[in-house]
């Protein structure tokens, strides 16, 4: 499994938020992608957009509620088309499957188009250890592969890199002169990877959708690497999470309408490639073998909790990242694992272990911008709350995070709020305690542990002499008896 740094969110976010280059990059992506998304919605009209969202959500609800049925159908149809289907419980098993295919088919060179699931598995490292040369071909993924980094966004994995950094990277790793021009860099990538596409024994792809009815794997790309990975080598392996299924071919239409617009504001990406088994005998080209590797890796935990199941409706468009004020401040790496941002704050903890990622469900104001932007209307804020409840109260030791101090505070809070009398006493005590630190109705520095974090950059108001309870009793309640 890919290295897990989800426990480090607080420290990682504190340093990433200070990075001005990251700030600029995030602003570009945020306003760029989100602005384009909004324009695309306006173009089709919000009414039509809402109808599409509802249609897509209904399809996903139905499919995930009957996932076993559709997995069975998918399996049958992929096999009918001449492909092989492999099931992997976890990362280790998925890697073993791919490694076994690579070994028995004597694979030397592999090209990869984008697959987030393969990042979960850390598949590249596994293949390289066995002596297979693996080349990421999506330009953003290629850049971070050269830089030995992880992606920082679902759709734009190298957004945190300036063009100068890419220029330096290419000259260091590819031996080309330093380039300043983005078009020139793309040309270098094209030329370098072209040979790899044509040399490769194995092409590895992810899947945006899997169509149960026909046994088809669908990938949506702009660069053309997806087509070359799935057409040029003699073997194609598609690696996918088990949740990517939709029932029928005709269901694909609404998702093709939602995904590119939500991701980048495009009406449709340059290519939609649909793979149904290996090449047929009469085909002029195409792989001789097609393998579909269907991965669980913790998704059944999301599936098994009705409150979390809808996290599996995600089509990985990245819209939630682009509107999230927290992601926009800290960037993707702070989240510490494959999936950042709002959806990542649910998926990463459940997949790696909730108590290894206890910051993620809390690092949100629950503002709901993500749910509003999500084409599948996934109720992210409510799921974050659900995870917070598990962290505080779950009897399961893998989920519960020790909340000694916080639990005490919560119980203390309830004690104070348990009656207007205790609240009134607390108010009186507060009025006394605040005297030394109150200046002209403001508290500039709070000595208490957690509240001192507030007063770093903000003043606190002081407790007024009378609470509303008191004012009501003394001045306002009488009026309620008038006019009767």
């Amino acid at each position, binding site marked *: 499994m890919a290295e897990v740094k989800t426990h480090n969110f607080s420290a990682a976010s504190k340093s990433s938020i200070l990075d001005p280059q990251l700030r600029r990059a995030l602003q570009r992506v945020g306003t760029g992608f989100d602005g384009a998304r909004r324009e695309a919605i306006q173009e089709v009209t919000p009414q039509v957009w809402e109808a599409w969202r509802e249609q897509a959500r209904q399809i996903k609800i139905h499919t995930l509620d009957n996932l076993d049925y559709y997995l069975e159908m998918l399996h049958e149809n992929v096999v009918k088309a001449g492909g092989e289907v492999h099931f992997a419980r976890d990362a280790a098993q998925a890697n073993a499957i791919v490694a076994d295919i690579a070994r028995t088919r004597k694979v030397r060179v592999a090209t990869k188009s984008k697959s987030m699931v393969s990042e979960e598995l850390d598949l590249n490292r596994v293949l390289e250890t066995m002596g297979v040369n693996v080349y990421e071909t999506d330009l953003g993924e290629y850049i971070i592969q050269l830089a030995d980094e992880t992606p920082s966004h679902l759709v734009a994995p190298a957004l945190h890199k300036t063009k100068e950094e890419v220029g330096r990277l290419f000259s260091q790793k590819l031996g080309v002169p330093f380039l300043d021009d983005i078009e020139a860099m793309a040309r270098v990538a094209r030329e370098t990877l072209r040979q790899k596409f044509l040399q490769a024994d194995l092409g590895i792809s992810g899947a945006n959708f899997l169509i149960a009815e026909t046994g088809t794997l669908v990938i949506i790309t702009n660069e053309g690497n997806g087509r070359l990975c799935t057409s040029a080598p003699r073997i194609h392996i598609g690696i996918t999470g088990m949740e990517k299924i939709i029932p029928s071919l005709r269901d694909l239409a609404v998702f093709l309408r939602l995904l590119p617009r939500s991701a980048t504001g495009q009406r449709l990406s340059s290519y939609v490639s649909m793979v149904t088994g290996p090449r047929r005998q009469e085909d002029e080209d195409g792989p001789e073998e097609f393998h579909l590797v269907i991965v669980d890796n913790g998704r059944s935990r999301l599936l098994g909790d009705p409150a979390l199941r809808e996290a599996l409706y995600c089509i990985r468009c990245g819209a939630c990242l682009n509107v999230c004020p927290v992601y926009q401040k800290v960037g993707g790496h702070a989240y510490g694992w494959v999936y950042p941002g709002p959806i990542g704050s649910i998926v990463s903890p459940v997949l790696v272990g909730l108590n290894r990622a206890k910051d993620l469900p809390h690092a949100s104001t629950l503002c709901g911008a993500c749910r509003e932007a999500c084409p599948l209307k996934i109720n992210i804020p409510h799921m974050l709350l659900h995870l917070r409840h598990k962290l505080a109260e779950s009897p399961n030791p893998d989920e519960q995070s020790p909340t000694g101090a*916080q639990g005490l505070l919560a119980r203390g809070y309830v004690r104070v709020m348990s009656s207007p009398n205790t609240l009134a006493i607390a108010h009186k005590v507060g009025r006394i305690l605040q005297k030394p630190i109150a200046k002209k109705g403001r508290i500039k520095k709070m000595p208490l542990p957690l509240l001192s974090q507030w007063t770093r950059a903000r003043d606190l108001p002081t407790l007024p002499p009378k609470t509303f309870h008191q004012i009501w009793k003394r001045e306002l309640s009488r009026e309620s008896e008038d*006019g009767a």
Partner: protein
Amino acid sequence: MGQDCRTKASLFVTCIVDQLYPQVGVSVVRVLRRLGVSVDFPMDQTCCGQPVFNAGFTRQGRQLAERVLRSFRHSQYVVVPSGSCTAMMRVFYPELFKDDPGLQRQAKELSAKVYEFTEFLVKVLGVEDIGASYHGAVTYHSSCHLLRELEVRDEPRRLLGKVRGLQLKELPQVESCCGFGGTFSVKYPHISEGMLADKLANVVASGAETLVACDMSCLMHIEGAISRQGLDIKVRHLAQVLDNQIPSPSTKAH
């Protein structure tokens, strides 16, 4: 007098208004009474439970929610000067009591009769013009729970639009979060401060002298930075604007 046919509203004043900004509660009562509403205030109320619920403590949240159900059992309407507390009661209470049919029924009853203050004015009373006046440039921040959990978007603006003398300046990126988020503000202060800085920059850019919202939690947060930076921007709950109040909500002589 015979039967009292006036609309009866019970005020859930919210712990933040009760403890820190009681003048907001006074404005709410005055505005409602001016509109002929009979207002009562169940004295045994304290907190809706949202702070502990949002921190993950549903058991504690439930304890406080049960008190609220009891206090407002017989109310005709419950009016709340806060989008987030209203959302807690309308959206989350039924979920909180899902394992107790009796209490869940009560929670659903409360759900059906609880309204955020501006919602109540516009949707229930059918009123937009309170006869208020407020001279100056005002900008409105739409708090997140009000906007996205309750879908209250227009009502506050319609009310502000009828206030004589008030110039409404549009707040750039009006729908973006102020960064409070309850304990978020102290658990991730660096992020909270960053979001607050953006919100404050937009408030300043709007050119308004007064910032108005329907949630004191947001206003307390933003005012915290206004005060620290010594900016000359007033902060008011919308009820105070409708009540024509001039003094600052958070200070009297101490």
